[in-house]
């Protein structure tokens, strides 16, 4: 009941927020320098043709009217056309979103497979040699990862593992130059190649994903790692943990209950990191030549391509709002102290 009320309230807030975000984006994008009608027709087209196109695209109308027209179309799934490539934005997004989501999800999986256990192990204060060893290593990691630009790490990895060692493929995209992409089903290289039963493509895709995913996980896993470790450190030394031990409760239960307290803030920071991962993907996709959303955004900014940019930023905003919502809901379900109303 409490949960349902909270959920309803949050969804109620979500809709105006998304509308507002798309409007702000719309205004910003329309302020990009350059005349898109002129850019679309080329410098040799007569002025009258450019004017006609401007009229057709409603570029001469007030901004609210333009936005209304866009919104109306957006509801029917029509996000407009790219003026540069003459492709539908929705189609582009469907092609490119999976590329970006794939590296983000894989990076998060890596963080949870490696960094989360490490953070929990190294949180205990002990004299155990092995734990001490890991504590020293991860201390260095925590220091380093915050300062390392993701694009630089990507370049250094390419230099070491492609140029020098020659073990991993270079920045040639999702597959080798001679590989053909498997038929589009989900858009994920790994899943699509498995569906097509093409294991060569699967390995090629996996091989090409190693460096970009490692780069994202290494750089963006650091905040999650640091937060979880410090929270776990605190929870393990907290009064309630010592007391539970004094009562003689099973160590496993004591540990899990401490971990539960520690996981709250960690989930919040994970939500923030997912948002940053979307931005990080822009740089990492540029470095590794992946045809994802990030590259799409960079290209459309450079060419003043209204519709793709609008589509991308709207998607990013909705994605972020949904991540925040998910984080809040998980937190709300886990922590009885959070009241149904009120902001963070």
């Amino acid at each position, binding site marked *: 009941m409490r949960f349902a009320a909270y959920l309803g309230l949050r969804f109620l807030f979500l809709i105006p927020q998304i509308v507002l975000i798309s409007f702000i984006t719309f205004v910003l994008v329309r302020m990009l320098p350059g005349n898109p009608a002129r850019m679309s027709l080329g410098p040799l087209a007569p002025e009258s043709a450019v004017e006609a196109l401007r009229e057709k695209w409603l570029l001469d109308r007030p901004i609210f009217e333009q936005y209304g027209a866009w919104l109306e179309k957006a509801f029917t799934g029509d996000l407009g056309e790219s003026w540069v490539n003459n492709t539908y934005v929705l189609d582009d997004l469907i092609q490119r979103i999976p590329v970006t989501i794939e590296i983000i999800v894989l990076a998060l999986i890596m963080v949870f497979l490696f960094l989360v256990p490490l953070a929990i192990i190294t949180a205990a204060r002990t004299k155990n040699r092995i734990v001490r060893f890991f504590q020293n290593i991860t201390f260095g990691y925590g220091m380093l990862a915050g*300062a390392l630009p993701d694009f630089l790490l990507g*370049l250094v990895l*390419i230099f070491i593992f492609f140029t020098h060692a020659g073990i991993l493929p270079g920045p040639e995209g999702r597959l080798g130059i001679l590989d053909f992409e498997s038929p589009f089903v989900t858009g994920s290289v790994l899943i699509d190649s498995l569906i097509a039963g093409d294991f060569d493509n699967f390995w090629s895709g996996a091989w090409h994903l190693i460096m970009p995913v490692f780069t994202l996980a290494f750089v963006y896993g650091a905040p999650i790692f640091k937060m979880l470790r410090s929270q776990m450190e605190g929870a393990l030394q907290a009064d309630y943990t010592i*007391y539970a031990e004094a*009562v*003689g*409760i099973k160590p496993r239960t004591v540990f899990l209950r401490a971990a539960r307290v520690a996981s709250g803030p960690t989930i919040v920071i994970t939500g923030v990191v997912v948002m940053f991962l979307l931005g990080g993907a822009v740089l990492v996709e540029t470095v590794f030549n992946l045809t994802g959303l990030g590259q799409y*955004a960079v290209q459309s900014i450079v060419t003043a391509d209204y519709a793709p940019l609008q589509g991308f930023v709207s998607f*990013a905003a909705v994605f972020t709002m949904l991540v925040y919502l998910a984080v809040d809901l998980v937190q709300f379900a886990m922590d009885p102290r959070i009241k149904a109303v009120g902001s963070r």
Partner: protein
Amino acid sequence: MWMRIKRTLKALPKWQLGVLGIFFGIIFLTIFGPYLAPFPTETADPLSRLVPPGGKHWLGTDENGMDIFSRVLAAPRTDVVIGVVATFISVVIGAPLGVLVALYETRGKAGATAFAETFMRLLEVMQSFPVFVFAMVLVAVFGGSLTNIIIAIAFVNTPVFIRLVRAEVLTLVQRPFAEAARAVGNNEMRLGFRHIFPNAFPVVMVQVSVTVGFAILLTAGLSFVGAGVRPPTPELGAMIASGAKYLIIEQWWPALFPGIALGLTVFSFGIFGEILNLAMEPRAVRKDLDRRRTNALESAAGEAAAVPVAVAASVGASAAPVLAVSDLSVAVGDAGGQELISNISFSLAPGESMAIVGESGSGKSVLVKSVLQLLPFPLEVTSGAVRYGDIDLVGMEKRKLRKLRSREIAAILPNAKSQLNPLTTVGAMLTSALKAHEKISNKDAIARSIELLEMVGITDPELRLSAFPHELSGGMAQRVCLALALMYRPRLLIADEPTAGLDVTIQRQVLDLTRDLARDAGTARLVITGDFGIAAHYCDRVAVMQAGRIVEANRTEELFASPQHPYTKYLLSCVQV
């Protein structure tokens, strides 16, 4: 101020001092870098393209034949200045806005609250744009001049400061000093900006350092994708971008050296933030103070020991004791660490009750934790034994020790509300405790838990099972702990400040209840308290602790009638005003 800097510097590990050096080096380069460059930093020289490091060009030359060393020296002028100025703008705009929003929120008027709430929602909308893309769009819209880059970066960082300052002010507003400032007749705005904001300043300063690092990273990232500072201006991100294509064909120097410089810059700003944090937060420099206080305590202890007093040694050694502590010492870390309690000996007969009295800091709680074998990490028992019946608890296997807990040795620790895990219900706590010690079905465990809650006088026990600790009053939480302590009629109950923080009538109720239940079960009690009244009223014997030693122990009436040790006399004189 100067003292504080000196103390902080002393407390720093060597590597941090090194990073601090690098930090000031980068600041120096920001100011003087362009003048120190041995070669022109923006003029192409087609005759010496991509020269490897060494010789005339220490770090080699880039694709345009420009000297990389010179450009790296000159680059902080661009990167650091953008980072610092942008962050400065974010603070100057964000911090006052944060104070305002917090003030509106606490004012309690419907209109003001609605305004603050709407503002925060709008902020959320702004923050839901991916920072990097948002900055890119801003630069694209308004053009890539230096000013516009700074404005774009300042704009995306401002919400961080609004949120931070708002959160700080919201907690500070409840502090007594804020109440006082309001009571003296300061109006809302004056209160916010003159009295509260300065107190939020340390947190802001730490965030500034972190944000400058982040802003530099953002600048470099923007330039890297070609949406920021453009060549030939010496800027690290753009330099890395122009070097990137040569990295793949083994010409690593044009990208790598600027990369290292960028990493070092961001890293040193981050560490500088941590050092600032250390300097600003009094708690962080405590190590030093602690040492001084322990020294003072030790010398006091030395003096006390010099006074020839008949310490009623090994008191109460009648029939086989339940608990016999002999010659117990606890120190920090391994040999050579500070000793916190020294050579403590006492024993407790079955069903007997004994109080240990002392001021805060006298080592009472360390004694409790060492008897219960719950010493936190760096503390260790360095000598002596804690005998429960025939068994020495010191160094006992954890698995065996756990079997004794609650069943035979129960503990009540100070401030019950903080002893209960905030996310565990009363019912889950009780049933897990029962299940940890016996084979019991879930249903039976719940039934037993209800009985236990009834036993300690909690009304509506069935309802309380689903309550979380934050929903309990202090007295109620204390009763839950009492139920946990007495669920198996243990032979020994160790209660550390069992009533601290409760109001006086509740104190009496809880203490009476503890005494009665313990008496029924034949439980021996060791009560640690700072309150002579509690000791006199509830305990058969009293031991007085000072600076980690028991200086006097005797039967309660005798100790009160004729205190021997000067410290006991002093404590008693404080009580009997």
